[in-house]
């Protein structure tokens, strides 16, 4: 094979390897992006929504306390009662929506337990509210019925948030491990191909350098007509082989010249 063909082959091989590396990295970047998007749109988003429910639940409890503290004023009673019921409905709706979206059975179970506990708490709040109104804003009697009752649902929801945070951390760790595995695979494959390409390149390069050295030695002897015992053994089907073949003609012509002059 001609040296130029070998060099073109090696260059094309390198170009194919580099293109393959670039394409692999593009695919990997897309895969990483998709993986993290899935985490952000899934567990991470649900964790954020869960924290919002947590905050809304605390606001609901605060609204209840506002009813007890300021309910003697009819305007405040109406205002905080409305806010309390709106917040109560909001918490239930958000928790139900979250339970419907989450893919984790353990988180869904915790959310269902929260919803059950929250329904029971709503009934107690309503009973306490009735006592509060019937006993002429007796906040002590009303508070006695629900005091500390929000801690159960609140604790359940803390577990929901913890569970979702753990899922986010696990998903991110899995994504990171997957990325590292794929990068190692890409580097091994591309590194192996580069190694083969480099070995072929070095083999061609050293072959050319060695044969060029032989060619120079022959050329040096021909330049001074030192052809006695000269054997031109530079074979091959490439450019150097062709030059070696031409030098055999020069050597033969020099022999002939010396033979003619000898006669």
């Amino acid at each position, binding site marked *: 094979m001609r040296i130029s063909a070998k060099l073109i082959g090696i260059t094309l091989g390198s170009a194919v390897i580099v293109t393959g590396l670039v394409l692999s990295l593009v695919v990997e970047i897309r895969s990483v992006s998709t993986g993290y998007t899935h985490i952000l749109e899934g567990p991470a988003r649900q964790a954020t929504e869960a924290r919002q429910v947590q905050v809304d639940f605390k606001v609901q409890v605060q609204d209840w306390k506002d009813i007890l503290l300021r309910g003697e004023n009819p305007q405040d009673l109406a205002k905080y009662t409305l806010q309390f019921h709106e917040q109560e409905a909001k918490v239930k709706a958000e928790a139900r929506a979250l339970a419907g979206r989450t893919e984790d059975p353990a988180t869904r179970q915790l959310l269902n337990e929260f919803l059950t506990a929250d329904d029971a708490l709503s009934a107690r709040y309503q009973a306490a509210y009735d006592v509060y109104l019937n006993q002429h804003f007796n906040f002590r009697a009303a508070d006695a019925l629900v005091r500390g009752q929000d801690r159960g649902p609140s604790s359940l929801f803390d577990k929901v948030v913890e569970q979702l945070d753990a899922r986010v951390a696990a998903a991110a760790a899995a994504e990171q491990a997957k990325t590292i595995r794929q990068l190692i695979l890409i580097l091994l494959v591309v590194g192996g191909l580069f190694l083969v390409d480099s070995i072929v390149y070095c083999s061609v390069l050293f072959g050319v350098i060695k044969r060029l050295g032989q060619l120079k030695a022959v050329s040096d002897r021909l330049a001074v007509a030192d052809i006695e015992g000269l054997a031109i053994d530079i074979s091959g089907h490439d450019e150097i082989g062709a030059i070696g*073949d031409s030098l*055999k*003609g*020069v*050597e*033969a*012509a020099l*022999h*002939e*010249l010396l*033979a*003619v002059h000898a006669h």
Partner: protein
Amino acid sequence: MGIQLKERYEAVGKEMGAVGRMKLAMLTKMSSTAAADAEDSAGNLKLVDDAILQLRKAM
């Protein structure tokens, strides 16, 4: 040995002189001494005849 080959070199020498013999040696990559030692094989004879034709065309 290469009797016919040697005869061809001598004929070229007479026809084209020393330069012709040198050119013939260059084209065949074989001096007349080497031709005399070579076999009069069909391949060698054709090689020399083709080179002579080429030289005659170039004259």
